[in-house]
């Protein structure tokens, strides 16, 4: 275990996780107004119509694959009858489809962002940094899969990378597991960790506002200007929540002219 291993596979991931969690909490607390997907659809829709769904559905599949591959221990899957062979087939085929969708979408989105003047002009520095690490992560991951899994003999990351990640979650970090992992997998992991570090400061926060509550809430939402209205004779029903004053108003109170 050399110091570099500890830095890369223990210190860095924990630092990234800390920034990820604290950054999101702080941003959620202090920057509700900036918390948006910041869509560029109103500028241009012909490219986005294809690029955005391709990328998003692809990346959701990729996310699902990573959950299965990284967080579910091998013996558990085998208990359910998912043998190494079945897992490998599934990971390769579904993974390839997901990769094609994601990469096709990402390429369309990147080209659009560069070539459509309206979209290019609203791209911030943070957007560019984020795109760099996002593209890097996807590119290294795909390269590793193609090199080692498709063309090569196949590398069992469920014996090294997956236990390493779970060792981090268990606060029993085992950096030795990562030292012999193939180079492109290492690059992929480091790039992804950097992306997590940047995450709370980018537009990627919109991932955490996936509006699943829409499935269960009533269509028409009523809110009261203040919480004191009504005699209480009629019980408030679902969908008639009391609203809070926008936070900005209260924050500004001290500085009011």
């Amino acid at each position, binding site marked *: 275990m050399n110091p570099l291993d500890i830095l890369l596979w223990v210190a860095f991931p924990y630092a990234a996780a800390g920034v990820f969690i604290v950054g999101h909490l702080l941003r959620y607390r202090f920057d509700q*107004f900036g918390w948006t997907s910041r869509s560029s*659809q*109103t500028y241009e829709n012909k490219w986005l119509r294809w690029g955005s769904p391709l*990328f998003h559905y692809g990346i959701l599949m990729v996310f699902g694959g990573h959950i299965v591959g990284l967080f579910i221990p091998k013996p558990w899957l085998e208990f359910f009858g998912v043998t190494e062979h079945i897992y490998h087939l599934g990971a390769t085929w579904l993974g390839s489809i997901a990769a094609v969708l994601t990469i096709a979408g990402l390429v369309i989105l990147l080209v659009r962002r560069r070539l459509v003047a*309206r979209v290019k002009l609203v791209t911030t520095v943070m957007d560019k940094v984020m795109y760099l690490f996002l593209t890097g992560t996807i590119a290294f991951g795909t390269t590793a899969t193609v090199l080692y899994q498709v063309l090569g003999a196949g590398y069992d990351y469920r014996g090294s990378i997956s236990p390493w990640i779970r060792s981090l979650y268990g606060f029993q970090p085992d950096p030795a597991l990562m030292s012999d992992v193939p180079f492109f997998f290492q690059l992929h992991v480091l790039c992804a960790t950097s992306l997590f570090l940047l995450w709370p400061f980018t537009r990627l926060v919109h991932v955490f506002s996936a*509006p699943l509550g*829409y499935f269960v809430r009533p269509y*028409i939402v009523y809110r*009261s200007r203040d919480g004191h209205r009504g005699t209480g004779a*009629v019980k408030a029903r679902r969908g008639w929540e009391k609203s809070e004053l926008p936070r900005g108003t209260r924050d500004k109170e001290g500085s009011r002219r």
Partner: protein
Amino acid sequence: MRVMAQMSMIMNLDKCIGCHTCSVTCKQVWTNRTGVEYVWFNNVETKPGVGYPRRYEDQEKWKGGWQRNKRGRLKLRSGGRIKRLATIFNNPDLPVIDDYYEPWTYDYDMLTKAPLSTESPVARPKSLLTGQNMDIKWSGNWDDDLGGSQETAADDPILATMSEHVKMEFENTFMFYLPRICEHCLNPACVAACPSGAMYKREEDGIVLVDEDGCRGWRMCVSACPYKKVYFNHKTGKAEKCTLCYPLIEQGKPTICSETCVGRLRYLGLMLYDADAVLAQASVENEHDLLDAQRACFLDPFDPEVIAAAKAEGMEDDWILAAQNSPIYKLISEYKVALPLHPEYRTMPMVWYIPPLSPVVDVISTTNNDGEDARTLFAAIDKLRIPVEYLAGLFSAGDVVPVEDSLRKLAAMRSYMRDINLGRDRDESIPEAVGMTGTEIEAMYRLLAIAKYEDRYVIPKAHVETARELEELACSLDTDGGPGMGGPTAATAAGPYGKTPGMPLNATVDNYNQMVGKGGERTKPTTPGRVNLLNWTGGGVPDGMFPPRTIDGATGSPA
């Protein structure tokens, strides 16, 4: 029965001269910021015409509003919950900015600072999206006064539903203006479509608002609103819409568009309605029944049962009194001259219109007949199918009967009041012909023609003992970058999170020159350091506002 109060508006279209004062004052108050340059919470359309955004009334294309399905239940035309979340990555029905228009400014600086040349300097139009030169091909009211409508009017979705000869003749027949704001619907499709639940209807006064902090920029409200009155701020990535100037309404003052209306054609007041009845009434099968269905949701503010129920809901006495004095209640429920805009969208809109009699009167006058004679007017309303059918397409889902009834009442008022003003005997047969009494006609005349300020606006104040934020200068929309912001400084706009791309947030529309480092260099002013006072927000002293100081402290022009 759940009694709710709705702050509503009625516009008397006969009085609209299409001056756009409402639009301009509204824009100055609400949308003179970057990201909403193309947005007009209030706009005035010439009808027939394609409207703003172009062809917004074509719901086959835009999928706005509600639809009644085979089981008799209401469904958003753009699809239910599952489809909405499945298409969240790319809203299939969203208008792009070109459907409104590409916002622009002019290189005014060129006019005064161009170097000596044989040609006159020109102020070229510059896109506010890219800073590049652009050709202006469309705007919010490009077909104003039927300008260029030989080419565009055929695209008017309402004309398209009428018979062929209309398209050929309409230009010689009629024209009127239609000012539009958010309808603050009883059954708002935008609220129903918001995946984040950030849009809501205010319990106190029914004003539909966007919670700017909760909005995540999914843009479903923009496409679900059949009137296209929710807009996407392309700089902040949040939805914005007409607020019915609620900071003013809460103080008992009319909205900016009403206050500044030159023709005094707008009315503001409360309607009491039964919130529990709305869904069933919005789901009636026949579109022609929707007008009566909406009227059936309204409650009589003089009915003791309604008053008791309203008090049980916590409504204060002054609000009930305001509902009883409401000009809206008189025009909708007593005189029945006001009609809703596009009831067929099933959103139960609450900005209603008194249809214009002027297209009919104009035709009579041009044929040298008496445009103020009741019998002539009645006959003309029956005969002039084209304007009446067109108005029906706007205000009653194509049913001409309510439009005719309303126009006949206006004609009766015109004729009956002429006799009085000329000192002739009152002809009581005229009000009788439209089912009214002479006293009612006179009261309606007072409300519509005299239109005293206190008669037009009956607005109860929000209850101060329960509200914390009613000072006019510090409205609760004053969040940074929010619609009511007092203009955040560059420091607050450039925090670690709140940075928006492109131009600074505190800029006004006239500011493409400030797009420093964003492709705007080529369009920088010829005299750097000059200050356009139109862009000055009042905070701080920008460079170049005053001439540089000389060494001894006195000011003067540089050598």
